[in-house]
């Protein structure tokens, strides 16, 4: 079943896209019709106007799905699965030409040679001979160095002086490129067929984000061949050096000058360092010029024209592919680098909906041996929890210490016979088997457990304190500064401290969340308690209620709406804090998954965790809304 779903991802995606499209259009039709009917009865601003309207919800959700499918290139994968493979072959040609293009203005606005000349001249102008570093006899040599380098630059930039070898090589590359362009234009593609190996490749998206590398279509085969030839041309282009004979002489001369200056010492000891620095800087500039990578701009004209020609031929040969690239691959394109073809742009960081579901299904698989779960823990499952562990959690070890008697010692026959005290210790340490109970397990449960424990503690301790603060001047004034001092500090500011003190296990996170929940519960319970109507308090006094009874039967129920709203807020804030805390430290939890996903740039996993957190947050909130609706139906009707 799962296999089938996974294999037919493209088909399912295509179906879902069509479904979303149909719902989008039909919901708009229904919505417009309904609006036309209702607008007759309701004036603008009537609160009735924004009630119901499921069709707009459908419209919004399907629009979201359509945008998601479109920008994640899910539509492209569903309807044009071969396009990516073809684009990959085109990308191969782009990659092959990139070393040549790097020397031309096509990618960086200037010729590479122009940039080099400009930079070197600039650095040369900034360099000055330190006064007194050279003796009177050396000084003219040093000053002449500048002029010589400028002459060298002129020689290398002069098309007339271009070395004969370089001239021939450049022409060869330009001719080769033109031949490729001709080839692209004239080749009959019907004669080309993909290899069996290429057809056996896993399809696009089956193995994460890679795109099959070998050409699967006739057009792809052509581009593949052309790009292989282009790679060779680019290699020979990179080897071309501009060495005019006169320049060679000049280079030897400059090098001899520098070596001569380096060999002799400075006139005085304190001038040694500035002299050495100057020579070093000068040599650094010179070394960039002596390898012949500067060409006269005009000399590259032939190559430039051939490349333009090739690119024109390429886009013509791509045919409908250019159109597809512009429409169904928005926000990026397929890029080839080294041995991989990858999606770059939105297709990469916005995973396809179907892939997200597949990833989620894999995470949710409770069978760890079959690759389910994450880092040795399931997403949400159950396990047998030994009761002894639970007992040991609540019974501290020192209970055994205060039991009467001594712990057992080894006797003369070399045996250790445990006594009562030892048995109590075993119980407190969870070493006695007491049976097991089924218990939830997994990353989601770990996160939930932390939030729930912290929330329960926060409510149990925070509500009574808050109510007392709401009714008693002492409690209010005594605790107000304490709580107001720690509450405004963002929980994440506390996190490093608390995780250091309590350790990275559950206790630290629970304490951190407890701090958050406690403050919120105190404040909401306090607001609820202090907002009790005086007449209700007076009425209960007149009915003979004691102070305790008024607290329990009047002030607490009266504060219920605020308390429940407080719980609702606390859940949300705790959830947010927890995920951040889990990102800081720990080995389980939803935040932990996202943190690992972040370090390996696994966009799909990041989106899956975001999805899980969103859905859980929504479920929490819906539960609380239901509880509020059930427990305080009088709210807003008093």
């Amino acid at each position: 079943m799962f296999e089938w779903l996974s294999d037919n991802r493209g088909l399912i995606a295509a179906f879902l896209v069509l479904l979303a499209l149909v719902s989008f259009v039909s919901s708009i039709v229904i919505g417009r019709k309904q609006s036309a009917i209702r607008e007759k009865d309701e004036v603008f601003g009537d609160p009735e106007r924004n009630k119901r309207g499921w069709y707009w919800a459908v419209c919004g959700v399907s629009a979201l799905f359509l945008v998601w499918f479109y920008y994640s290139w899910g539509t492209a994968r569903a309807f044009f699965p071969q396009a990516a493979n073809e684009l990959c072959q085109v990308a191969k040609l782009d990659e092959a030409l990139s070393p040549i293009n790097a020397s031309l203005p096509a990618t960086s606005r200037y010729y590479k040679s122009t940039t080099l000349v400009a930079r070197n001249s600039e650095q040369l102008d900034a360099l000055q001979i330190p006064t007194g570093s050279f003796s009177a006899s050396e000084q003219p040599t040093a000053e002449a160095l500048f002029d010589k380098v400028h002459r060298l630059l002129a020689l290398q930039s002069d098309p007339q002086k271009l070395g004969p070898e370089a001239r021939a090589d450049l022409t060869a590359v330009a001719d080769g490129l033109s031949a490729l362009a001709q080839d692209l234009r004239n080749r009959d593609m019907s004669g080309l067929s993909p290899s069996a190996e290429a057809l056996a490749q896993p399809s696009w998206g089956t193995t994460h984000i890679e795109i099959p590398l070998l050409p699967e279509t006739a057009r792809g085969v052509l581009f593949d061949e052309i790009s292989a030839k282009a790679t060779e041309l680019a290699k020979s282009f990179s080897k071309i050096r501009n060495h005019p004979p006169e320049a060679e002489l000049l280079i030897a001369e400059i090098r001899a000058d520098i070596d001569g200056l380096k060999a002799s010492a400075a006139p005085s000891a304190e001038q040694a360092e500035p002299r050495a620095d100057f020579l070093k800087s000068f040599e650094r500039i010179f070394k960039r010029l002596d390898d012949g990578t500067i060409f006269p701009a005009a000399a590259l004209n032939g190559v430039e024209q051939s490349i333009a020609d090739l690119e024109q031929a390429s886009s013509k040969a791509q045919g409908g592919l250019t159109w597809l690239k512009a429409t169904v691959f928005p926000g990026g394109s397929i890029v080839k680098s080294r041995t991989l073809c990858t999606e770059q742009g939105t297709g990469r960081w916005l995973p396809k909906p179907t892939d997200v579901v597949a990833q989620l299904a894999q995470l949710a698989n409770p069978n760890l041996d079959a690759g389910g779960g994450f880092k040795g823990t399931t997403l949400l499952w159950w396990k047998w929890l030994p009761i002894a562990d639970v007992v040991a959690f609540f019974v501290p070890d020192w209970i055994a210490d205060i039991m009467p008697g001594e712990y057992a010692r080894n006797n003369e026959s070399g045996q250790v016979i445990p006594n009562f005290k030892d048995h109590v210790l075993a119980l407190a340490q969870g070493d006695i088997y007491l049976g097991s109970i089924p218990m939830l397990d997994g990353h989601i449960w770990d996160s939930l457990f932390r939030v729930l424990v912290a929330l329960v503690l926060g409510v149990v301790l925070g509500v009574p304190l808050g109510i007392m603060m709401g009714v008693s001047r002492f409690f209010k004034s005594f605790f107000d500064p304490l709580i107001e001092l720690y509450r405004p500090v963002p929980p994440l500011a506390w996190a490093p401290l608390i995780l250091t003190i309590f350790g990275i296990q559950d206790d630290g996170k629970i304490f951190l969340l407890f701090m958050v929940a406690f403050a919120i519960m105190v404040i909401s319970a306090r607001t609820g308690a202090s907002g009790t109507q005086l007449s209700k308090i007076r009425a209960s006094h007149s009915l003979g209620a004691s102070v305790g009874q008024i607290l329990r039967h009047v002030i607490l129920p009266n504060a219920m709406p605020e308390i429940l709203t407080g719980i609702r807020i606390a859940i949300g804030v705790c959830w947010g804090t927890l995920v951040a805390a889990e990102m800081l430290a720990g080995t389980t939890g939803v935040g932990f998954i996202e943190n690992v996903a972040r370090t390996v740039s696994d966009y799909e996993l990041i989106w899956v965790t975001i999805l899980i957190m969103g859905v859980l947050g929504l479920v929490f909130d819906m539960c609380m809304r239901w509880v509020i609706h059930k427990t305080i139906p009088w709210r807003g009707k008093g």
Partner: protein
Amino acid sequence: MADLIATDLCMTFTNPQTGGKVEALKDVNFHLKEGEILSVLGPSGCGKTTLLNIVAGFINPSSGTVALDDHIIHGPGADRGMVFQQGALFEWLPVEKNVDFGLRMKKTDKTEAAAKVEHWLDTVGLQGFGKTPTYQLSGGMQQRVALARCLVNDPEVILMDEPLGALDALTREKMQSLVLELWKETGKTIMIITHSVEEALLLGERLFVMAPRPGRLHKEYRLPFAERGLKESLREIKKDPEFSRVREEILTMIWDMEEEIMGRV
């Protein structure tokens, strides 16, 4: 002898910001016999509510005493039931739980309490509304619940702070009859604060008109209308020329007081 006796009651409020003093009550003396029904009238700010709060025990007088049943009142107690203008019901409880609140606080036996609740709900005309949430009741019905909640506790005195002030005219008239019926049936001492002269005349066997600055008893009436209201329709009584005469007299009195206040300010 469950008489309500006020002796030399004075109440002075101090404004905590300005330190200025306001004499809300000055030398108030009265003696309300058991079973009497008293209505208190007066222009706003004459200390009616202060007087009631002192009797209820919510605030302590600056000097003087109020005694009930020969005991001087210190603090609120179940012997003085209160009915407020807005009902002050506990909206998280259904009608019957509101009514038996006092009994539950005293930990009365449950079956006994249930019988009492049923009896009083019948008496105030709310049979079958026991399980209804109070927020679903109309204003008049809420006030009936408040009456039942007070009566089920069997107080010696019932204190009402403008109990019918928030009701519409028709409901108000019905409730006035109900109050009179309850008075007759239970024989309780009742003290009603009101700002409606007509209501004060109809309900008050005795009537105090209070004057402001300092708040004091200005004039006392003994009226026959409450007694007559038990037998006749209230609308008939209102047509009585004697009724109209007293009403006009009191209205003029209060009007003059208001004028005087305005003049002073």
